[in-house]
């Protein structure tokens, strides 16, 4: 078991002929993911390294039965790409693209609400179930199949956490990067719920960062619903107020969204907080050994 993706997941790449789309479609295929189709408007009927390309997601779905999409479409067209995949009925839509205008995502979120699709991202590394299915841009080799679920707003910080876990011999059930933007398809809470319901996942690492109150809400959710051990880390303890730290969502405004607030809320919910980014793995190891 795992969450959202496994060896049976069939993936279509939106923007398969772009530089990024090519590199990562190849890497995912090499990892063992079923990369069954690509979509590039106007290039239908051609192929990319044996993978058939279609003009529309709808055609790709009809022909290949793909049930997940991953998009590397440039920011100006990213929202439209998501809408196309949702309209075609693709169950899991993953948008890797960084720099999507927030206003576009407001409309996308509203539209998805009434659909059966789940969106991950945008501005995220994607999702991986180690040993079975990798969809996105994460380096595959750092992962190891196992029982710890990892959820994070940050891409490279997720790799850091996974790397530490693997170095300590702790494998992962699935790792999901939900994206660093103010408006994303899947939240911390959504991910926690999925990990909580997954019998294979025995413990969870949650990585947050300054800005918004998503981590506080997640803490409350854990307190009410999650019996599995949870380790958290919050990035941005040294970030100054009012400055956007790279991610569009990472800004402390009006005194809310500080790392201190989030850490306090997490601790109050019984979550073990790693204070240093170098200690995410060891904190989980210690917690697992205690039980």
């Amino acid at each position: 078991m795992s969450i959202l993706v496994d060896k049976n997941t069939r993936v279509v790449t939106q923007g398969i002929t772009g530089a990024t789309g090519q590199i990562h479609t190849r890497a995912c295929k090499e990892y063992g993911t079923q990369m069954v189709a690509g979509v590039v408007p106007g290039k239908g009927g051609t192929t990319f390294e044996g993978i058939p390309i279609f003009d529309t997601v709808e055609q790709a779905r009809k022909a290949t039965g793909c049930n997940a999409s991953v998009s590397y479409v440039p920011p100006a067209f990213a929202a439209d790409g998501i809408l196309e995949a949702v309209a075609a009925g693709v169950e899991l839509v993953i948008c890797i693209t960084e720099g999507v205008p927030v206003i576009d995502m407001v409309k996308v979120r509203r539209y998805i609400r009434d659909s059966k699709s789940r969106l991950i991202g945008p501005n995220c590394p994607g999702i991986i179930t180690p040993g079975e299915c990798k969809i996105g841009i994460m380096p595959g080799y750092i992962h190891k199949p196992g029982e710890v679920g990892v959820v994070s707003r940050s891409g490279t910080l997720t790799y850091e956490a996974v790397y530490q876990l693997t170095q300590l011999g702790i494998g992962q059930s699935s790792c999901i990067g939900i994206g660093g933007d103010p408006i994303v398809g899947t939240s911390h809470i959504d991910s926690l719920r999925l990990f909580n319901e997954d019998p294979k996942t025995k413990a969870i690492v949650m990585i947050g960062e300054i800005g918004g109150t998503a981590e506080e809400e997640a803490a409350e959710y854990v307190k009410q619903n999650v019996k599995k051990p949870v380790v958290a880390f919050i990035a941005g303890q040294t970030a100054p107020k009012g400055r956007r730290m790279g991610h569009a969502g990472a800004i402390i405004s009006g005194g809310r969204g500080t790392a201190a607030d989030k850490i306090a809320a997490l601790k109050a919910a019984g979550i073990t907080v790693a204070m240093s980014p170098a200690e995410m793995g060891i904190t989980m190891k210690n917690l697992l050994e205690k039980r």
Partner: protein
Amino acid sequence: MNIHEFQAKQVLRRFGAPVPVAHEASVTTPDEAAKAFTALGQPRAVMKVQIHAGGRGKAGGVKIVSSAEEARAFATKWLGNKIVTHQTGPDGRIVRHMYIEEASDVARELYLGLVVDRKAQSVAVIASTEGGMEIEEVAAKTPDRIMTEPIDPLLGVSAFLGRKIAFGLGLKDKQVGQFVVLLSALYKAFVETDASLIEINPLVVTKDGRVICLDAKMSFDDNGLFRHPEIRELRDPNEEDPAETEAAKFDLSYVHLDGNIGCMVNGAGLAMATMDIVKQYGAEPANFLDVGGGASTEKVAAAFRIILSDQRVKGVLINIFGGIMRCDVLAQGVVEAAKQVNLSVPLVVRMEGTNVVEGKKILAESGIKVIGAADLADAARKVTEAIGVRKAQ
């Protein structure tokens, strides 16, 4: 991206929001100020210092003037001089623009804001009867006086929603209709310019019963700027950190801080975490810098130059976890930049991920003095030790 009040009012005017009659461009000399007063043709006018920070009134940067000579004198006082407000920090800002508009007779001061609400996952209206105060202060002291209403992106501002907020603000008669039109105009401006914030503080009711935007602040979503050349032109580099402006040219995400360890990292979360661990080892980060995913050699070299242009930097920590970013590209960029600038401070590099072996090889064969680090903690330890800071862990 932030803009000046006079620019925000130009944008809002274009979308039909009521703002005071004004000399629409800013004035930049005392002569222009005198001429603008005369051209405005009002018995009294308000002159306001234009900087990207609040608290101008309390710092003496706002004045009602009744003659061209008075306008000239007030402009002479400020233009080219420094103003310090509670938001500028002790260094203050040099005043380069002033704005002149009709003086309004104010009966009531209200607050109106539009923001992207993460919780509602939409644009939300924030309104309060407590105008002229900082909304954070109102939220802390009298949260019951703040209304928050999400706007459905498929519907926009419905008339009933506008009325609901208007009545909540205690508006009556013709003011209610005026407010609904005003709110619709602000929402249209927000969506069509990819704004991230519109703040009208205060929104006022004049003694003759008009509802107008007396002050205006607008910020824009940097991700949306590509489709608004007219908004991009409003950027005022004088209000921004020169290193940050330089970084923006290379599409680097850089924030200047006060410490002495320059940091170059890929990914915003890892960049923040790297700053955090530098501090935990007893030093202070000099900057936040995310080189991004698909960084080229040129981009990495530019990032390296920008970090080293800060005289306070005593050591540099490069922390790369390659996903999209390839370690060999990073290493190539560092080598290139180190050739261009005279590297005189310790450089610690921690690399992991895509093409890490090739990256390490490039650095090792480059002849540059690089201190390698095995992991994140090792990197923080080595860079702080290299600049002579030690802290018991």
